[in-house]
Each structure stands twice: as C-alpha cells, then as structure tokens.
C-alpha cells in the first residue's frame, strides 16, 4: 500500500526529479532563489525568520529603553516618540509570532524534517511549497514596508482591536493599519499552503513499514499543529478581510456607529489566537522529544500519551478563546464557562510535562548544547504554564488583565517555544543541515548568556505586573502608583538584561558562520540517533537518498533496548 502511493507521488513531480537524477547542473537561481528542494525552502524560511527575529528583538530594545529610561535617547535609535512606541510594541509582537515563530518552527523545521524523518525524497507538492515561501516573503516585505509609509507603521497592538485599527482618524496610521492586516492575511495564506503540504506528505509519503506509531514525535506535532492552524485560521482570515473593508470601503462590520460590533473582531481574533499558541508550541515540544531521547539515551516515556495530550490540548484550545476577553464587555456569565475550560487545559499540559520529566528518569544524560536548550525549554515552559493559571482564573484576571504579569506569562511560553525551541532544533540538526559540527564551547556560552538574561528580563516583570503595571504604556512617570523607585530599578534590570541577551546572539551567529565554514566535518550520524534523517549524508543531497529510500522496521525511540547488543541505539532503518 505505502509502496504504491510512493510510486504515484514520485510520478507527480517528475520534472523536479528529472532535474536532479538527470545530472543536470542547476543554476544558482534554480537552486537558491526558486528552489523546489524542501531543504532549501526550509533554509529560506529559517534565515528569513532569523532575520525578522533580529528586527523584532531590536524593536524590543528600543521600546524597553523608553520604558526604563523615558525621555532619554536610545542608542542606535534616538528618542522614542509615543507614536513610534506604539508601532514598535505592535510590530514586535506581530513579527515575533507571525514572522518568526511560525516560519521557523512550522515552516522551516516542518519542511526540513518531515521528508527526511519519514523517508521521503521531498514534499508531495514541491511547487506549492515554493509558492508558500514566496507569499511569505512578500508578507514580510509588506510588514516591513509599513514603517516607511506616511503616518508610519500600525500602532494598535498585535491584537488590532477595532475601532482603533479600522478608523484612520483614531489610529493616525491610515496606510500602516491596512498594510499590517494585509501582511497578516498574506502570511496566513502562505501557511495554509504549507500546511496542506505537511499533512499530505506525512500521511502519504512515509517509508514502507512506517506505521502511525513509528512516526517521530516532531513530525506528528507539526502535522497536528498544521491541522489546528487550518481549523482556526478561517474565522480570522474572514475577519481580516472584513477589517480591510472597514478601513477602505466604508463597511461597518466592527463600527458601532453604524450597527457593527467591535467585540466581534475580538472573538474572531482569539478563536484563532489561542489555538495559535499551540500551533507553535507543538513543533517545539516535538523537537524537545527528539533531543531528550537522544541525549538521554532513553525511549520516550509514553509515546502515545504524548500524542494524546497534544491532541487533547489542541481540541481544548478551541474552547478557551474568551479568557482573553473576560473584562472586554462580554456577558459576564460566559467568564465562568471559559474559566473552567481554561483550567482544564492544565490537565493535558501537566501530563505532557510529567511525561517529559519521566523520560529523564533512568536515562544516561549528556548535557550537550542541544540538550541544554531542550531541558531549559521544559523548565521555562513550566513557569509559563503555571502562571497561566493565575490569568485563567476569572476573578484574578479582573486585576491582572493586560498587566506585565500577562506579558511575562506569555513570554515564558512563547520564548521557550520560539527562541529556545529553535535553538534546540537548530543546534541539534546543524550537522545534518550544513555538514559541519558546531563549536560546543561557544554553544554553551551562548546558552548561558541567553537563558540567564531571559529570566532576569521577565521575572521582574511578574513582580511589576502584580504591582499593577499595565502593558503598552509609553511613559510610566505619568502614573504615581507606577513610579516608585523600586519599580524603576526592576524596569532597568529588565532592559539591561535584554541588552545583554541581544548582544549574546552575536556569539550564536559567529558560531554558525565559523562552524559552517571551518567546523569539523559532520559524520552521517554524529549523535547516534535512530531517526531516518541521520542515515542520509550530511548534508543530504537533493532527493535525500540517491541510493534508494529507507525502509522502516521499528519505532523512533528504541534507545538502550535490552535485545540490542553492542550499541545503545537501534536505527529505524536497520532490519532485524
């Protein structure tokens, strides 16, 4: 059965196979600018995402400077004006979620790993794949260009609540608002195309013998995330078009003056927005599963349990959106329902955390750079998870809503996901991606200089949030209750920590570039891992396994199996 599907799928993209197997040399443009190879598209997504992360990080620096040292000039930026401040916080959030977390975790890792880990030579629809990146690139250009139009970039927060986002006389960014929502809508289109590819490829192109429970966890997670994304994004895409109409054609979907309802947008936004958290969470959780098993030399504790908790969390995530709107003017009785569903999510997520911690039990743990990142993901995300309980409890949210406590909470979820998860995956698969080993010393230095400042940025913000500090305030000197000297000290600590953390990223890029050029050559399987990608050459050629695609004989996590003599791993492709 699997075999016949594979023949089929190979026939479908004959053209691109011909190009490879025929030995025809591809031009630079074919190979790097308009590639069909899933690995090259993955790299396009990866480096575009990292570039956008630098911009998003720099924005954070500029507005954090203004928060901690209002009225002084931020080095390399200058005086931050109120309008700039709003644009910076808005686009920091939008960029980090839509142009960093999504492209890197879903698109880059999805594209790179799915075919390699299921033993396929490429995605099922390589041309849709290429189109997906091209639309994504256009969306990134659109969001960046919004900083250079008259009125400047949109400044109504990444949630873009109307009427502020729909009426130019309120936002004062007539073009920026429209460019923002256009970029977001385009980005969604890109990921819908990518999602189709991921789901189809994982379901249809698996190696012979690879049954459902033999699929590596990260592939499962990216597939579930793609399904969640496709199910949740429809309402917001519709909402985005309604918003563009409201802004430019004079419709009144969200305009209360003409019978529209501004709260409607909030429902559409958060019906997508909450599942979106899990869309980016799941790939990171999958990456961590691959790493802790390899560097713990341990079978994943409860493979099916992890999978079911991911599906359970995904399903529940569709029922919790209004916890973002407790005090938004929705019927107060609804808050009770959404408090219950929100706290219910703690059950599968706690289970997932327990299972990961249990995987460490009885292992043989090596604290390599990827392992440090993976372990820190578990610990930091745990903090993000438990602080969510404070906010899901409606009674407490009356006070905590939109404070720094919220901000610190979701940075303790998104940062482990988007930054720690990415570094974990990137350092783990770097030998496969570039055929070179990274420098471990620099890797660990980069780890500590990132993880310590990360905590000293956001732990103080929990305290400030509990003391009543609101988000998105340009100048706290206007509020006596928010201007106590100890508060300024904590704000300064957070800002200085951010600067240290941003500077530490220089170590990472230095390490990437020098290792890429002159690192020791990577063998096929430097970590003694089981999954298919480690049976291809490092880096794998176009088509992945020119000598023939692998066959699957067992699950992905058979480490330290008692029946296996002589080595502590048992590759999926080895018969016997």
């Amino acid at each position, binding site marked *: 059965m699997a075999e016949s599907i594979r023949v089929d799928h190979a026939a479908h993209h004959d053209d691109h196979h011909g190009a490879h197997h025929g030995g025809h040399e591809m031009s630079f443009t074919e190979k790097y600018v308009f590639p069909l190879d899933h690995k090259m598209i993955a790299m396009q997504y990866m480096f575009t995402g990292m570039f956008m992360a630098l911009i998003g990080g720099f924005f954070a620096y500029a507005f954090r400077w203004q928060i901690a040292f209002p009225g002084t000039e931020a080095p390399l930026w200058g005086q931050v004006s109120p309008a700039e401040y709003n644009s910076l916080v808005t686009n920091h959030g939008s960029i980090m979620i839509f142009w960093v977390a999504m492209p890197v975790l879903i698109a880059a890792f999805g594209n790179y790993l799915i075919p390699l880990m299921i033993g396929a030579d490429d995605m099922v629809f390589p041309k849709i794949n290429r189109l997906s990146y091209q639309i994504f690139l256009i969306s990134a250009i659109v969001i960046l260009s919004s900083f250079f139009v008259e009125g400047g970039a949109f400044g109504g927060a990444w949630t873009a609540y109307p009427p502020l986002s729909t009426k130019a006389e309120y936002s004062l960014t007539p073009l920026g608002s429209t460019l923002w929502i256009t970029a977001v809508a385009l980005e969604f289109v890109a990921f819908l195309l990518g999602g189709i590819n991921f789901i189809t490829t994982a379901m249809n192109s698996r190696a012979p013998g690879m049954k459902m429970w033999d699929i590596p966890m990260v592939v499962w997670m990216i597939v579930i995330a793609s399904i969640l994304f496709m199910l949740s994004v429809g309402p917001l895409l519709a909402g985005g078009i309604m918003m563009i109409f409201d802004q430019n054609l004079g419709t009144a979907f969200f305009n209360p003056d003409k019978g529209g309802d501004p709260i409607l947008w909030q429902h559409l936004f958060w019906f997508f927005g909450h599942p979106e958290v899990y869309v980016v969470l799941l790939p990171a959780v999958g990456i961590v599963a691959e790493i802790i098993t390899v560097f713990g030399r341990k079978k994943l504790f409860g493979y099916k349990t992890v999978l079911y908790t991911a599906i359970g969390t995904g399903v529940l995530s569709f029922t919790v959106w209004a916890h973002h709107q407790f005090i938004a003017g929705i019927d107060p009785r609804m808050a009770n329902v959404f408090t219950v569903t929100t706290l219910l999510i703690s059950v599968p997520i706690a289970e997932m955390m327990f299972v990961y911690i*249990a995987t460490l039990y009885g292992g043989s743990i090596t604290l390599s750079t990827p392992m440090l990142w993976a372990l820190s993901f578990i610990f930091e995300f745990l903090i993000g998870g438990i602080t969510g309980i404070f906010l899901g409890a409606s*009674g407490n949210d009356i006070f905590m809503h939109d404070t720094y406590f919220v901000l610190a909470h979701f940075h303790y979820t998104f940062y482990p996901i988007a930054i720690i998860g990415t570094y974990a995956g990137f350092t783990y698969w770097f030998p496969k991606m570039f055929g070179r080993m990274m420098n471990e010393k620099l890797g660990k230095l980069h780890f500590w200089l990132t993880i310590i400042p990360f905590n000293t940025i956001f732990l103080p913000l929990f305290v400030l949030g509990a003391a009543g500090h609101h988000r998105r305030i340009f100048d706290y000197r206007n509020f006596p209750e928010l201007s106590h000297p100890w508060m300024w000290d904590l704000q300064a600590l957070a800002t200085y920590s951010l600067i240290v953390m941003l500077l530490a990223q220089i170590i990472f890029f230095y390490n990437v570039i020098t290792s890429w050029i002159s690192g020791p050559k990577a063998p096929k399987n430097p970590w003694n891992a089981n999954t298919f990608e480690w049976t291809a050459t490092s880096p794998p050629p176009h088509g992945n396994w020119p000598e023939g695609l692998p066959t699957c004989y067992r699950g992905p996590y058979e480490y330290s199996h008692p029946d296996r003599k002589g080595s502590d791993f048992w590759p999926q492709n080895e018969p016997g």
Partner: protein
Amino acid sequence: MILESLLPSASTYAGDIDRLFDVITLLVGIPFLVASYLFFAFIFRFKAKDGKKSMYITGTEHQYMKWIHRAHVPILVFDVIIVVMAVRVWYDVKQNLPEANSTVRVIAQQWAWTFVHPGPDNVLDTADDITTINELHVAKDTLYHYKLEAKDVLHNFSVPAFRLKQDAIPGRIITGWFEPTMAGTFDIQCAEICGIGHGLMPAKIIIEGAEQHAAWVEANSPLALTVAANQ
C-alpha cells in the same frame, strides 16, 4: 498578602482578589516546586557515566505510569478549588450588582477621562451634576455604580487600588460597581491601548470621608458656582 504588600487595597473586593491570588500562588507553587525538584534531581542523578546503560521504559508499565496518574489527582483537586474561588470572586465583582448609594458616569475618549458626578440631589442627569476632567471624587464606604462609556475607541477603566478593570466600548454603556474603603488619592489608568496618547491618559480617584465629599459636592455643584459667580 502578596498583592497588598505591593499596592494599596482600597475597595471592598480588593481583599477577595488578593486572597484568591495568594491561594493560586500556593496551589500552583506546590506542584511547581515538586516538578522542578524532580526535574533537576533526575538530570543530576542520571548523568551519563562510562559503561552505564539507560533503563528501557516504554511508559506503559503500570509501575511507572501510576506515578503520572497519581500526580493528576492533586492537579484536579487544585483546579477545582481555584475554579470555585475564582468564580465566586468573579460573581461578586462582575455578575452581581448590589444596590447603590450613588451613581457616577465615566466617559473615556482619546485621551482623557470625563467624570459626571451627581450633584447635591444625588441623582445623575439633572441640572446640578458635576462634570470633571481626569478627577473622580467619591466618598469612602459608599457603594457606587459606574456607567462606563467610550466616545471613540476601546478604553479600559482601571483602578489598580480597587483591583478593578472594565473595558469601555463605544456604543455601549457598561454598568458595574465599587465601594471604596480607604481615603486617599489613587491612580485611574487606561488599560486598553487607545492610540498614541494611551500612555498619557492618567486620571485620579479622590476618596474622602462622607462629610468632606459632601462639602466638595456643595462647593462644586453648578448651582453653588453660579451663586459664587453672582456675588
């Protein structure tokens, strides 16, 4: 306990929210400490050593899985406690509307607050109403209803000392309540981004004893001002 040490607690329900915060801290703190302890203990205890092979555990064995199941019992119990307490506080602050002694109108716009106080007749929307900008005057130990409106975009009427937040929505009038328990001057902050002046939209709530407040009302009602102007 925790929140009170960080900012004043000046309404009847502020203490309830503070207690809820303390209980949640305790109930999530315990599982967090246990999980962190196990996490670090496993990392140090099971560091790789030469010649030592890992255990082979699939995670379906009862002897191991039972620990995961057992851990769920406290989590579920804690969840139930938190839900019950949260809903009770929520009901009290947001769903329930106790009988009021007085009513004020709060109108948010880009980027200022307008407060309409009832005059000496204690009835809103009459000739003696007192309108102020960025200053809300209320009496201690008096139960107020607020009628919250927005003129342009979303705003949020936030009084941290009361632990109160409520979005203001153009086209709607949202009614809620508070009862100040402490005399003093506290911040009113807009807590929903409302444009470039969002961070520059502070207001004050001035809480005085009943007599001082009555004196303020007398002195500032349009009638008194007219008399003063004529003299």
